[in-house]
């Protein structure tokens, strides 16, 4: 009996995954970083670079400008200098590597990096109550930013 329910559930999930967009999103705990890269889109679809550009600057979302300067967004005041400037970052890293950096920078750089992991639940202690179990960016936002970073070529 138990067995039937389980397999029933499993096939229902497979069905969902193949039909509904939401179900094809890889959960934060299931993202596999291999050789410093995440080869497949977290949503199964390509990101939107224009949206990514906005997410990158938005203080409530990526807030990447807090730490990184990028000439492409020189219209924005105050670019940080904590991380390397991201001009040409699309030449230095592949799409799959950039995705991995965004998902969990700690797995790519070092445990000590200041850069937050944007799609991981491997976070600090005492997380603000309403954010427990939530990632900084959604899978879709990560894909958008990846699509944007790829455009940063020199």
């Amino acid at each position, binding site marked *: 009996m138990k067995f039937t329910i389980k397999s029933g559930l499993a096939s229902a999930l497979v069905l969902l995954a193949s039909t509904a967009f939401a179900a094809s999103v890889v959960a934060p705990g299931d993202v596999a970083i291999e050789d410093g890269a995440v080869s497949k889109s977290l949503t199964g679809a390509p990101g939107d670079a224009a949206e990514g550009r906005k997410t990158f600057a938005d203080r409530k979302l990526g*807030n990447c400008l807090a730490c990184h300067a990028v000439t492409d967004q020189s219209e924005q005041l105050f670019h940080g200098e904590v991380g390397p*400037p991201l001009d040409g970052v699309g030449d230095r890293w592949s799409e799959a590597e950039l995705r991995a950096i965004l998902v969990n920078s700690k797995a790519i*750089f070092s445990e000590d*990096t200041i850069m*937050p992991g944007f799609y991981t639940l491997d976070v600090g202690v*005492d997380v603000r109550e309403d954010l427990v179990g939530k990632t900084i960016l959604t899978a879709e936002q990560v894909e958008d930013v990846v699509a944007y970073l790829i455009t940063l070529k020199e």
Partner: protein
Amino acid sequence: MPVARGGSAGNLSGGKTLKTLFSVSMAAIMSGGMWASVVLAGPSDDKLVIDEQIEMTTRTAAPEGHPLDEVISGWHYRTPETRALETDTFQNPGMLAVEEGAQIWETVEGTEGKSCATCHGDASESMAGVGANYPKWDEDSGKPINIELQINKCRVENMGAEPYKFDKDGQKPLTAFIKHQSLGQPVALDLSQGDMQTWWDKGKDLYYRRTGQLNLSCATCHEDYNGYRIRADHLSQGNANGFPTYRLKQGALVSIHNRFRGCIRDTRAEYPAAFSDDLMALEVYVTWRGSGLSVETPAVRQ
């Protein structure tokens, strides 16, 4: 413990260009710190002299066991305009609150019919140097206390008055007034009192503990990256010697526990209550990190 870098301006001047940086291997990039060489915001080299007479120690050799070589006041990381405000007590907007504190010092409150002055007389004598040595061990509670808690102790035990609530009523101005009596004195804690060392240890743990969704510790920002700009902010070493501090952004005095809570909140974490054991331990440790710096209260910050 994270790799120390950017600890002093000296570390920033490696002179490598971006090009060489990015032609090196990824392994080298991962070892970190190399683009540090391309940015040179750093702390300023000015000297802080208040009213053309009080020469302030704003840079000094770090005490033994400190992770950085040099201890630097947050004053050095501010803009020339902000720095200038602190050089002149007439211009320093925090001095209004200090004057308010002076009035409170003389004001009788509570059932015993006493003011601070009734017991302590002229603060410029009785309180000279006192604020430079807090937090201090408090035998009665078996904990370290800061000036705010010492004020409350006096209010309850000697004046028959209600303790001030956190950041309310006279707490900030009176604390600033008392600390201001130590202007220019070097911060020096006595860690041999009571269990101070245990609290220091606990504070140190908290300092390196990563909190919140952004997964940052105090050290990530103030030890590894002081001297760098994080968006519009110029990261300092996060020293406590200027508190309560006048923040231009808020147009008011800001207490040290308020600042701690703000920094912890910015990591997207729940933050401890003011005067909780965690924040008192942090105050002991953070104050110690600024050992030897002059008390700047009321410092002016952005």
